[in-house]
């Protein structure tokens, strides 16, 4: 099997697994207990917090652990809205993950105004648009750092500065970014940042939220005062230990891994670009999230491509309506201006450091064959789609 769906989830790093095992076996204590077992667990928790804080350059007391980025995003959005009840306006982008866009939608149903900033053809948000959207009623701006589908990386520092100039809190969903691009949360100047374990070879069911002293969200659940009184419930100690290990490994190996993953995905893009009527969605490989590619194969449908590739042992994901939970094409792909029929034929290939060059060659071969097979039987006869905005080429012009 060739796994090219690492923006969905990743295989657990063996080192991370090893680090977790003692906490699933003998070191089972509850960090809240006062005895030896409790102390052992609490020490592990403290160490994990310090590790992650050091990697993203924040204070350990500014990181809390959650069940994943979905919870972190919910906590940041609802928590910020409730902490500033006098402000009734939220700004997000039109390419957010559902764990940001759905909380925003709920606030909208509760009477909030929600602005969804448009993006350009590559997926970038303009500072100008943000500046115009802000007003004295804005409580929070939430912009994804690296997009899960097209890998576009936003100018978070600039955007956060603009929000702060109007006294508005800034949250970024960094679930896809952590461990894959280097960033310094203090330098970015954001108030909240969401992290996830299983996108960087850590375990599932664990993530984190950064918050700073200036911006403290209201907790969403009531219970005991764990996680600085922001997130009740006994901590997932083995998960947190594994998450911290994964972050540590990513930081340790980044100078080797990031260029290598970039090289592999650029090679894959190059190989697939030779297929006719095919184009890359989002920024060029060197500009986007390492390992992420999103490619439209015109005149055929993504789920059919995905299923054929899966039968051949290649795992990818698709932006087509058929593979979505709501039967409409990906909001990210339509936001960057793709027609529905272009979004239906979109496939995301996402690589990690566990992928090899031989796999890239194999995937190029399989994909070329599958595309040819499906095109040979398509009912979608090319007429109006040979010309498109941005040119005919694989890499679009700006």
């Amino acid at each position: 099997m060739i796994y090219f769906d690492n923006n969905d989830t990743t295989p657990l790093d063996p080192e991370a697994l090893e680090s977790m095992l003692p906490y699933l076996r003998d070191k089972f204590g509850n960090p809240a207990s006062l005895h030896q077992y409790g102390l052992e667990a609490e020490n592990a928790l403290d160490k994990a917090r310090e590790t992650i804080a050091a990697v993203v350059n924040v204070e350990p007391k500014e990181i809390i652990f959650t069940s994943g980025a979905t919870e972190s995003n919910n906590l940041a959005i609802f928590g910020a809205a409730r902490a500033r009840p006098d402000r009734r306006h939220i700004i997000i982008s039109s390419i957010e993950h559902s764990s940001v866009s759905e909380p925003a939608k709920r606030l909208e149903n509760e009477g909030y105004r929600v602005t969804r900033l448009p993006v350009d053809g590559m997926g970038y948000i303009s500072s100008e648009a943000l500046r115009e959207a802000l007003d004295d009623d804005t409580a929070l701006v939430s912009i994804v750092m690296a997009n899960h589908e097209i890998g576009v990386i936003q100018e978070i520092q600039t955007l956060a500065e603009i929000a702060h100039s109007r006294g508005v809190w800034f949250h970024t969903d960094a679930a896809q970014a952590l461990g894959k691009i280097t960033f310094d949360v203090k330098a970015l100047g954001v108030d909240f940042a969401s992290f996830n374990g299983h996108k960087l070879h850590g375990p599932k069911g664990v993530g984190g939220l950064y918050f700073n002293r200036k911006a403290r969200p209201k907790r969403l659940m009531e219970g005991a005062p764990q996680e600085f009184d922001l997130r009740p419930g006994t901590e997932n100690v083995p998960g947190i230990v594994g998450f911290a290990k994964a972050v540590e490994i990513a930081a340790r190996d980044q100078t080797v891994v990031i260029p290598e993953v970039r090289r592999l995905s650029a090679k894959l893009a190059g190989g697939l670009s030779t297929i006719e009527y095919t184009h890359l969605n989002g920024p060029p490989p060197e500009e986007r999230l390492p390992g992420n590619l999103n490619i439209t194969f015109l005149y055929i449908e993504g789920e059919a491509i995905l299923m054929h590739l899966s039968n051949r042992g290649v795992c990818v994901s698709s932006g087509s309506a058929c593979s979505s939970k709501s039967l409409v094409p990906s909001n990210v792909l339509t936001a960057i201006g793709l027609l529905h029929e272009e979004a239906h034929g979109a496939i995301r290939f996402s690589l990690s450091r566990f992928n090899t060059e031989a796999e890239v060659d194999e995937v190029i071969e399989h994909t070329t064959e599958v595309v040819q097979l499906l095109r040979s039987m398509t009912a979608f006869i090319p007429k109006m789609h040979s010309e498109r905005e941005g040119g005919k080429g694989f890499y679009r012009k700006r």
Partner: protein
Amino acid sequence: MALKYSPTVIEHFTKPQNVGDICDADAVATEGSPACGDMITYSMKINPQTRIIEDVRFRSFGCASNIATASMATLMAKGKSIDDIKKMSHRDITVALGGLPAVKMHCSVLAVDGLKSAVKQWELEHGLVSDDNHILDRTAVTEALKGVLNPRTGCSLIDAKLINRMEIDNDEGRVFIEVMLCELDERFAENIEEEIREKIGALEGAQKVLVQFKPCEHIGKHLYF
């Protein structure tokens, strides 16, 4: 959401039967559109004496179940009379495929509608039916809505009694449909609206289709699909 396709669906998707075109076809029909991401083109040879479908082939732009349902539809149609096709239901294809996930049930509607379109076109060309049935009325709209399924349950809006209001203004060609929508179906609202527009919009005389949703409580019997 991992889709659980039956072994027969997988088989027909992987090795579809009767793919391609018939060059000297007696009838050709396309159902669906590229924008919907769901499209089938059939070509048929029909014996004018026996009115039996002697050959049928398909082309598909769509997902795995679109390909599988079209493949099964051609197998089922071959050797049948045009009257058999007219009586065919999308459920016949679903059953023959060993079931489809609820969210994919609409593929079987498209597959059977395509066969019916091809047959109807042949009948029109041979003067066997007249094409004067243009009245935009409740019967025609209801018939069209039978082809719109709730993706969560796989049941049509008509069978599930989800149509709350239906208003037809014949002079302006305006159709207004109010659909009951429970919380579980909210994520499909956009899709349901598109489907209604497409199906009713295809009716002769329908100029404008307005769709409105009315929030409702869960309808018990569909809750656990």
